């Protein structure tokens, strides 16, 4: 049987929606079976509790941390925590110099590392490099430690160094200090600092090589963006090695270009000259010190170090949001219960259920059986929202806070409005004297524009706030965005197709007074006007196909009834239809 095209496209939409629902269930089910997903969405800090980490600054000697620095640190830590997902963590200060980070669930070591280390990046040229030990093999053949540098040694350069690679930086005192430096001393320290304008003695992060570095030439703050990625070789093939790609800002590009040109000069003369190497120093330790094999003037650099995906991503996040004024250490890490408790969630859900019941009563009252379409659409919307939230919970650690639950309950209003706008447009078209089928199509065309325009405002708000805001506001924007997208999906793929099909059933097409689309009730003012029926532009063929469709959908009792009516006389039926 050849179906008319609205029926075909309506059935296709419903089938696709079914496919989407099944796919989501399979994704989530697969996650539950084979990964650590759960059938239930994760809850936020206020409802489920989590872990409270108290961070305390690692201060050396008389160093102090000012209030401004502490607030700056809170702000940077918040961005670092948020970078890992939408879990609405809380970050605040405690006492005069501690920072409290409250994270839902149990954070892993990678998260802890991401938030606590300063990640101050400095780029310094290499002056000298050597073995990590502070000993030498003396003339007697024995391994002897270098003596501590005598205070009498000259510690100011004889000539003013001309640039960062000038060996005039290496004074006898510095040389002695370098010789006596033991990389093992860096093992438990995270504060190996030298003023930016002075040389620095340090080792690489695996403590396998010792460096004497010139003054800072490019600051970490001159990095405008950092991303983790897999390196490619000169042919564009991936090497499989994780790297961090750096993009410098204008000043950084200029500074880096200048140093790069100079170091490439040393490299051209002697490729093994330590002075051709440039060190990426993170928190006082050398991450990597590659030789400059070309002048880089486009402001792009790459650190290859020895990363895996996690550590590359961690470093990229840290560099992107800037360095903390100091590194912190974890003072305590306690599990913490929910502040709101289950009673609040339960009462929220009870209230939501009561509210929904009222909505059901009101829509049935207003739209009669058409209200059932609204209610079914809301049920489908609820199902989809639940699945999507559960999947997002698993994939990106999305967490539902009480405010989020309230947001979802409000979304009922936004979602139902799509249906209300649509139904009212159909009614308007019926009032203009169209048949139900064409009223559904014409009403949809008009309602669709309105729905797209109004939902776009919501989506715009969601995207802008998600990108620009942090913390709770970001969580709110995320929920708004998800519900808006699902809402439009439901109205296109469920509500409209359902109405297209229903418009072909006898019950609705005949304008039964319980259908909510009764032209008698709606078009009362037009009743009796001759143009009422002629305005309906339904072709005879279409009408025939729709009555076949309706006949197909009849129950046995209805069919028998129809046969009786047909036998009794067709005139009755015509009267009902006109």
């Amino acid at each position, binding site marked *: 049987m050849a179906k008319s095209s609205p029926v075909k496209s309506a059935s296709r939409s419903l089938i696709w929606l079914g496919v989407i629902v099944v796919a989501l269930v399979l994704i989530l089910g697969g996650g539950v079976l084979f990964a650590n997903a759960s059938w239930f969405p994760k809850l936020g800090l206020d409802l489920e509790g989590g872990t409270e980490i108290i961070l305390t600054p690692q201060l050396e000697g008389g160093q102090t941390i000012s209030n401004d620095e502490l607030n700056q640190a809170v702000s940077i830590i918040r961005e670092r925590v948020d970078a890992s997902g939408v879990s609405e963590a809380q970050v605040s200060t405690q006492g005069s110099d501690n920072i409290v980070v409250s994270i839902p669930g149990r954070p892993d070591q990678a998260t802890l590392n991401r938030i606590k280390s300063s990640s101050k990046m400095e780029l310094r040229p290499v002056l000298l490099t050597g073995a990590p030990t502070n000993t030498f093999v003396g003339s007697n053949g024995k391994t002897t430690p270098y003596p501590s540098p005598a205070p009498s040694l000259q510690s100011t350069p004889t000539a003013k160094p001309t640039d960062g690679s000038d060996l005039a930086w290496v004074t006898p005192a510095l040389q002695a200090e370098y010789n006596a430096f033991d990389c093992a001393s860096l093992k438990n320290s995270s504060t190996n600092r030298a003023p930016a304008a002075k040389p620095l003695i340090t080792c690489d992060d695996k403590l396998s090589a010792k460096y004497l570095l010139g003054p800072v030439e490019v600051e970490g703050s001159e990095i405008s963006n950092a991303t983790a990625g897999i390196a490619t070789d000169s042919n564009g093939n991936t090497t499989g090695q994780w790297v961090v790609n750096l993009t410098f800002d204008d000043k950084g590009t200029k500074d880096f270009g200048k140093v790069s040109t100079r170091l490439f000069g040393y490299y051209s003369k002697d490729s093994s000259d330590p002075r051709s190497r440039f060190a990426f120093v993170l928190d006082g330790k050398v991450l990597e010190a590659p030789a400059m094999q070309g002048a880089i003037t486009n402001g792009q650099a790459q650190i290859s170090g020895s990363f895996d995906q996690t550590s590359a991503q961690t470093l990229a996040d840290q560099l992107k949001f800037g360095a903390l004024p100091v590194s912190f250490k974890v003072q*305590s890490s306690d599990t913490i219960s929910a502040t*709101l408790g289950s009673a609040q969630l339960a009462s929220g859900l009870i209230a939501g259920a009561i*509210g929904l019941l009222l909505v059901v009563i009101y829509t049935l009252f207003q739209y009669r059986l058409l209200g059932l379409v609204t209610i079914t659409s809301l049920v489908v919307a609820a199902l989809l929202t639940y699945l999507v939230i559960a999947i997002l919970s698993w994939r990106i650690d999305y967490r539902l806070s009480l405010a989020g639950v*309230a947001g979802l309950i*409000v979304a009922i*209003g936004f979602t139902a409005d799509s249906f209300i706008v649509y139904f009212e447009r159909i009614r308007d078209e019926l009032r203009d004297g169209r048949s139900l089928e064409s009223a559904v199509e014409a009403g949809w065309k008009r309602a669709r524009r309105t729905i797209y325009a109004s939902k776009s*405002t919501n989506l715009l*708000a969601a995207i*802008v706030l998600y990108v620009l805001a942090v913390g709770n*506001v970001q969580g709110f924007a995320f929920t708004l965005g998800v519900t808006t997208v699902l809402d439009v999906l439901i109205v296109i793929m469920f509500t409209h197709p359902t109405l297209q099909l229903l418009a072909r059933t006898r019950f609705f097409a005949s304008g039964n007074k319980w259908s909510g689309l009764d032209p008698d009730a709606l078009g009362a003012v037009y009743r009796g006007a001759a143009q009422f029926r002629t305005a309906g532009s339904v072709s005879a063929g279409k009408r025939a196909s729709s009555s076949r469709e309706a006949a197909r959908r009849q129950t046995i009792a209805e069919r028998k009834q129809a046969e009786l009516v047909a036998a009794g006389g067709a005139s009755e039926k015509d009267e009902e239809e006109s």
Partner: protein
Amino acid sequence: MAATRFQKFGNDLYTGARSIDFVGKRRVWYIIAAVLVVAAIIIPIVRGGFNFGIDFRGGSQFTVSDVKTIDQALAQQAVHRVKPDAAVQVSVTNGTGGRGVRVQTDQLSTDQTKRVGADLASAYGVTQDKVASTYIGPSWGADVSRQAIQGLVVFLLLAFVAMALYFRTWKMSAAAIVSLFHDLIITAGVYALVGFEITPATMIGFLTILGYSLYDTVVVFDKIRENTREDSDGLKHTFAESVNLAVNQTLVRSINTAVVAALPVGAILFIGAFVLGADTLRDISLALFIGILIGTYSTIFIAAPLYADFRDGEREIVRHDKKVLAARAKSPATEAVPTP
């Protein structure tokens, strides 16, 4: 039957047989709006500003370790004995130092801190040295607010441009944004009047209102766009009448949507505030409940009349209106259309 009467009401609004003169009586609505906005600004000033919670201002924190019981109500009582109206957040911690109770409350004076500490110690059956107190900073600090405001400004600018492009006139954007501010100011005023504490949940509520207000206006404006475009070649309605008819035709939708949106929120507000005393729910639902009602109201009574006003005096519209009125004078009106 009430439903039928409401349906008849909808039919009459659609055909214009019955019309509520939203645009014509605009001066009245403007005066009401002005009075409400001024009141909403004065109330918080008179009452000494908004009542910002711990999350915004920071406060005092007590940690009681090695507790015998973890009854959270005990902590609340202990704080309220010293400062009856203080907000209290209690949670149970479980760490290296054993089980403990963490109490966060408003900033207390040194004397109050001492008394609360002593009360907590006796309530949980521990010695005084197991109770530590410290100051906690705001978790919704200035940086969070700054970034939220930045986001809002960008959103409003983009929304203004997007609406201007979609509706082909910036005057609709202007009317929509004015009514948006009207809604936010009045909602904030009511909040100040009730004196509920402003929590992050409240702020989320305000953001939702902002979205709802703009959303509702766009839905009604889209009908106005449709009507004024269709009428531009017919001579049935003046511009202001077209706007008014569009508002009337969408009135049933506005009422239904407001009711459907407000019912669940109303249920949360009622249950949260009066039955269970669930603070967060109460905070957010109050802002939402008022916001939904005001947002729907302002689209009809402020945004649409404002738009008609903004367009008033444009040469094309004056010419169109003149033609309509002239045609009407020639043949007595066949349809009852109230003149604004």
